[in-house]
């Protein structure tokens, strides 16, 4: 791959605990910018699962998630020269995913009516349940399925910004600071938006029950 663009590295240092990750990210970005095919491939393979899962949770459709994953990585490589290292590469990619998903969802809504996804369909799209659940009793699993179905149905009804922040926190397990970086908002905004999203979700659950 030919060089993408020269990168001026930011003088801003990240937190000390992220120093190793920061240095690793920077080295990888430099390799990709220099046109190293192997580095670009590693960048995709290291993040593709995260990107795909987040896309799937935000869009709720496997094919859409696959398409979005490709778009995200294309966007990442096209704009890699703009990466300044003010956040971790992973957080930066999260931001690209959320932005692209938001655009895609907006585009989708303009053309199609939103569809409710049944839990069976959701599970079929997302694959089997986690290994830990295989130790639960069948009736417990059924109850968990029912609860999950209600929660995911309610989540589908939330605005995109509330849905995305819940997914980033509850499923991807991002810290408030990472979410702030991914959504390009302040940490205080993350707290308030997360609280509103949870309250909204509970209202939806109460309304549905």
């Amino acid at each position, binding site marked *: *791959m030919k060089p*993408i663009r020269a990168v001026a590295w930011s003088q801003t240092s990240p937190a000390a605990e992220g120093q190793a990750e920061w240095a690793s990210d920077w080295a990888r970005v430099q390799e990709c910018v220099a046109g190293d095919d192997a580095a*670009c491939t590693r960048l995709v393979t290291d993040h*593709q699962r995260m990107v*795909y*899962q987040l896309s799937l949770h935000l869009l709720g459709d496997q094919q859409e998630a696959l398409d979005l994953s490709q778009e995200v990585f294309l966007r990442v490589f*096209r704009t890699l020269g703009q990466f300044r290292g003010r956040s971790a590469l992973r957080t930066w990619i999260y931001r690209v995913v959320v932005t692209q998903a938001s655009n895609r969802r907006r585009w989708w809504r303009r053309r199609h009516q939103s569809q409710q996804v049944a839990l069976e369909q959701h599970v079929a799209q997302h*694959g089997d349940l*986690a*290994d830990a659940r295989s130790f639960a009793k069948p009736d417990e699993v059924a109850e968990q399925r029912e609860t999950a179905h209600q929660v995911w149905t309610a989540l589908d009804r939330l605005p995109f910004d509330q849905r995305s922040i819940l997914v980033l926190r509850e499923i991807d397990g991002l810290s408030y600071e990472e979410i702030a970086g991914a959504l390009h908002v302040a940490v205080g905004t993350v707290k308030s938006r997360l609280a509103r999203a949870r309250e909204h979700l509970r209202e939806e659950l109460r309304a549905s029950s």
Partner: protein
Amino acid sequence: MMTGPCREVLRALGAYADDELPGAARLVISGHLETCDQCASELGGLRGIGDALRFGSGYNTAVNPALAGLASGVTSRIHAEQAQSWPALWQKMFEDWHWVAVGLGAMAGALVTLVLASAMVVSSVTQLTQMNARAGTLYIIALPESGRGGGIMLEFEQSLGSARTDARLAVPASIGWQAERALVSALDEALVRNGRPASLVGLSRADREEILALLQEIADFRYVEPVRRPGGLTNVSGIHLDVRTSVTASGI
């Protein structure tokens, strides 16, 4: 009933569940939760939502097989985009000097075409200017009857207004100037159409005969009266029409 401490705890319960509280605040809330069932229930509800989301997400399942070709697909696409980008095309051009030659040849061809087109435009403008200024020259040559000595040449510039002046200068006043001037005026009118010199080639037979008659009458004047020239008198023996066709725009 919700007490003051409960309100504070509930406000921070989300951050507590997310493990985003500093140690001291976390200890305070932990202590409160041990004694307050309502707040503990709220915490359970929050965590239950998170558990349900994670349960349905299938986050720990195997990666979709379609992702296996994602990296190669993305890098190939980026390769293709870079191959189509302007910097890549520019670099490719210099890698193959034939493209440079083609480019220079095209530029040279365009330059030559431009020069030729400019020359044609300038030439056309010049011709148009000449056509408007001068349509031709009518010479009337008067030869002495004896054949000795030089002849007299009456020159008519066939442009508007000049024929009369030239004729006046060429014809001596001593040979009947008034009659001569009328003939020359008639000749001038016969040679000018609509303010422009007429084409002698395109004249009708009647017009030609009229012009020849006028010329004959002018010649008759010279037969009767000798032409006064510096150094002596010369008899006119004949008049000839000589048409120069240097300008062709009007057919002359």
